[in-house]
């Protein structure tokens, strides 16, 4: 074992460097990762040079040298893939710094624009890029633009990529070019081509009289070429046999592991066979496993391994991840994109609301949300104005009426299409019924109501199915991951592993996913928005925060308001694309609230003993409601609903679960607020 120690040092350092690079790679910090890979290569070549200078016991280190070279090779491979990516249009550096993103975001179906960071597409109020933002390294904007491709689902037209583009991007994203080896036959035909070229050159050099040599040359060429092909064929057959044998052997191994039978096990078995096969062709799993064995409790090693694994596009785990992502996206796309393109914002609502006869109405609504560049306002207000516009129906009589007719027809078409998309046959007949009875004398409201009800039911069912799919997909991914690396099967490593898988899984999907949630929770978002507009300027006292827990008005006049830091933190929730991160954001918000409350109380009771009481739920919920009101993001409603679906069981009773539950309580309270319930401090 001493031998291993003597040579291990440079290798270990190199491994560590590579690990850092991989980690950066995993976090999508491409530029840093690129540099780190290069540094690793540099280090390896330096170390090898030095060793070559002072060679004492060559054969001992030979193993290490081989491993170092392989590591260098792998690093080089990654570096190459970066170069490849840079040449592509969705350039990361451009997308992060793009100043034109907001205007470019309008144009459609262009990779560059979709990948472009939609920061400027106003998810939060302008003040959000405060120090809080900078302080949060993990969610820093160096993430690929991909993860941001519109966190606001119902915003611009450009938001959702067609599934084929999504799939292509998936592969472009982590393309590590594994050089394809030539099969024996291919090799032989190359060889033969060379021979032929040679022969032609020699033939050209022959003088016209040497016919005999010419025939002999031709014959020998033919013989050689034939031989080459026969040998190649034999080699290929042997190889095929060997592969077949190996496959059988691995399959048996897989069978032994899953002694039970059944369709699910069958699938697992195939996947596991793929993993075993992959491991025969690649060395890195062995290397990592050996490292894990040496230091099983090393958390950075675990996360390094997982992020490395997820960066290997050809590994069965990653392939499975892609497959599931694509499947989910495919189920989301028809719904979320359709709503955007055809009758925004509501799938089947006749677009009467956007009728050009109410420009002033729209204007006032626009101004009522003040300077807030606030995403959902645009998406929700048409529907609100639709409700208002019913007052105008009488005045506009004929025109509107005929318009409604056309719209209704459209909406039936939409509905039918929608039903077929959802494979929702049972209710089809009832659709036809209503179509038959659809005549001008019918009450439009009733009609619309039933359509909307149907639509809502279909959407809710669809949402449930998608959520279930996602759970199954993640379970499968995790179990395959743990099968591939048994060393990860400890409570802690498993959690880490799951977190990484989820991050990789959700990041490109979240915006589409939340768009579907927003469809389903539209009514709740509207209720929230109404309360928010009514009460955005209330003081903490108005929502029931005890006066000792916020500063007096006189203190608060300098452009800020109580609990502002918590509000800013909460706004950042929309920027993350992975449920775990979002939960952490909610936890941070609640912690900030407690810290602020503590500070405010100390301001009030300067002399008395400050340890009289701590913040309990009786204080927390009113403050949280205040923060939610100030946050001005109705989307929070849908985000929290989605988080509830994807929070882990283990977190459910812990701090994360508590914070999410409190958040939802506060949101529900805000939604339930009625006009006149609180003293409104409206700006005139």
């Amino acid at each position: 074992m001493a031998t291993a120690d003597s040579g291990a040092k440079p290798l270990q350092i190199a491994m560590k460097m590579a690990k850092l690079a991989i980690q950066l790679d995993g976090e999508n910090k491409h530029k840093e990762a690129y540099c780190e890979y290069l540094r690793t290569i540099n280090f390896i070549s330096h170390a090898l040079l030095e060793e070559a200078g002072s060679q004492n016991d060559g054969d001992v280190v030979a193993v290490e040298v081989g491993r170092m070279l392989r590591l260098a090779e792998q690093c080089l491979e990654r570096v190459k893939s970066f170069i490849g990516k840079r040449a592509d249009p969705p350039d990361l550096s451009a997308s992060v710094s793009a100043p034109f993103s907001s205007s470019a975001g309008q144009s459609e179906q262009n990779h560059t624009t979709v990948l472009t960071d939609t920061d400027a597409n106003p998810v939060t109020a302008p003040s959000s890029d405060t120090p809080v933002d900078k302080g949060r390294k993990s969610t820093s904007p160096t993430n690929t633009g991909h993860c941001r491709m519109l966190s606001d689902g119902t915003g611009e037209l450009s938001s959702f990529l067609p599934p084929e583009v999504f799939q292509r991007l998936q592969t472009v994203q982590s393309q590590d070019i594994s050089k394809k080896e030539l099969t024996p036959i291919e090799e032989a035909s190359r060889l033969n081509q060379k021979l032929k070229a040679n022969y032609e050159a020699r033939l050209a050099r022959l003088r016209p009289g040497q016919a005999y040599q010419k025939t002999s040359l031709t014959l020998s060429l033919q013989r050689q070429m034939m031989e080459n092909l026969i040998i190649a064929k034999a080699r290929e057959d042997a190889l095929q046999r060997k592969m077949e044998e190996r496959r059988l052997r691995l399959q048996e191994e897989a069978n032994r592991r899953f002694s039970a039978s059944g369709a699910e096990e069958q699938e697992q078995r195939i996947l596991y066979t793929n993993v075993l096969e992959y491991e025969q062709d690649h060395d890195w799993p062995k290397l990592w496993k050996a490292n894990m064995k040496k230091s099983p409790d090393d958390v950075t090693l675990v996360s390094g391994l997982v992020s490395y694994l997820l960066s290997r596009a050809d590994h069965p785990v990653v392939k499975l991840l892609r497959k599931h992502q694509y499947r989910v996206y495919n189920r989301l796309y028809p719904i979320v994109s359709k709503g955007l393109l055809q009758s925004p914002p509501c799938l089947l609502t006749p677009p009467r609301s956007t009728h050009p006869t109410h420009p002033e109405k729209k204007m006032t609504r626009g101004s009522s949300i003040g300077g807030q560049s606030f995403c959902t306002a645009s998406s929700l207000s048409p529907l609100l104005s639709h409700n208002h516009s019913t007052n105008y129906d009488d005045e506009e009589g004929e025109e509107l009426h005929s318009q409604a007719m056309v719209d209704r027809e459209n909406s039936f078409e939409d509905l039918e299409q929608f039903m077929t998309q959802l494979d929702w046959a049972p209710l089809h007949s009832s659709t036809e019924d209503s179509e038959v009875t659809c005549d001008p004398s019918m009450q439009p409201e009733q009609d619309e109501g039933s359509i909307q009800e149907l639509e809502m039911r279909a959407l809710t069912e669809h949402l449930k199915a998608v959520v279930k799919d996602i759970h199954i997909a993640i379970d499968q991914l995790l179990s395959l991951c743990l099968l591939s690396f048994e060393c990860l099967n400890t409570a802690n490593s498993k959690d880490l592993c799951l977190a990484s898988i989820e991050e990789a899984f959700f990041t490109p999907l979240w915006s589409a996913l939340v768009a579907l949630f927003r469809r389903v929770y539209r009514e709740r978002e509207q209720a929230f928005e109404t309360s928010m507009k009514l009460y955005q300027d209330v003081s903490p006292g108005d929502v029931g925060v005890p006066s000792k827990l916020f500063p007096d008005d006189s203190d608060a006049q300098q452009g800020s308001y109580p609990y502002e830091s918590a509000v800013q933190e909460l706004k950042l929730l929309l920027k993350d694309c992975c449920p775990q991160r979002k939960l952490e954001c909610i936890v941070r918000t609640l912690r900030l609230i407690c810290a602020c409350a503590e500070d405010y109380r100390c301001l009030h009771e300067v002399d008395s003993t400050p340890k009289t009481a701590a913040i309990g739920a009786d204080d927390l919920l009113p403050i949280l409601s205040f923060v939610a009101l100030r946050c001005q993001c109705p989307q929070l409603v849908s985000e929290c609903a989605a988080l509830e679906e994807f929070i882990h069981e283990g977190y459910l009773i812990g701090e994360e679960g508590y914070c999410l539950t409190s958040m939802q309580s506060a949101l529900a309270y805000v939604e339930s607020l009625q006009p006149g319930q609180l003293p409104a401090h409206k700006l005139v």
Partner: protein
Amino acid sequence: MAAGGTGGKTYSFKVVLLGEGCVGKTSLVLRYCENKFNDKHITTLQASFLTKKLNITGKRVNLAIWDTAGQERFHALGPIYYRDSNGAVLVYDITDEDSFQKVKNWVKELRKMLGNDICLCIVGNKIDLDKDRHVSVEDAESYAESVGAKHYHTSAKLNKGIEELFLDLCKRMMETAQAEERLKGNGASQSASSRRGVQIVDDEPQATPAGGCCSSG
């Protein structure tokens, strides 16, 4: 895999804390979590959410105590707070008849939502103010008995009865959990972790907090 096996098991229990605004539930729970050991049990969420690790008859118990808002306007969302709870501590103020009525309402709701799976503790707090008592001991205890709950008297101010209350609750929750395990069959003990917060984890042994809680076996 016998149910009584020692070591290796960690129970995780969720306990909700219910009670009207001024009954002193915050002080009660702070007393409980602050008093023992040190204040590292207090999370950054202060008294709203507290955790405590116990060692009861050789088994580790992780307690997560969820405070809930007493105000009526937040009650609509009560159910999502109680969901998956193993226990509930319902606190009233012995000098405030009204707060006892509120407790009765919560008991009804909890039983409706969670059936008999949840261990209920009804707690008359502020016994240091016994001279102003408005809820008679007999009334409270007979009510508790009638709904299958246990009744306790505490004083957060004097730190009376709190430790006993929680220890007793933990033991009852463990019994319930073990009964549930047995019902599911000892082979499938992992499945117990699926829904109701009873987790059986084989984690590394940790420094057991000074065994003050293992008073009675």
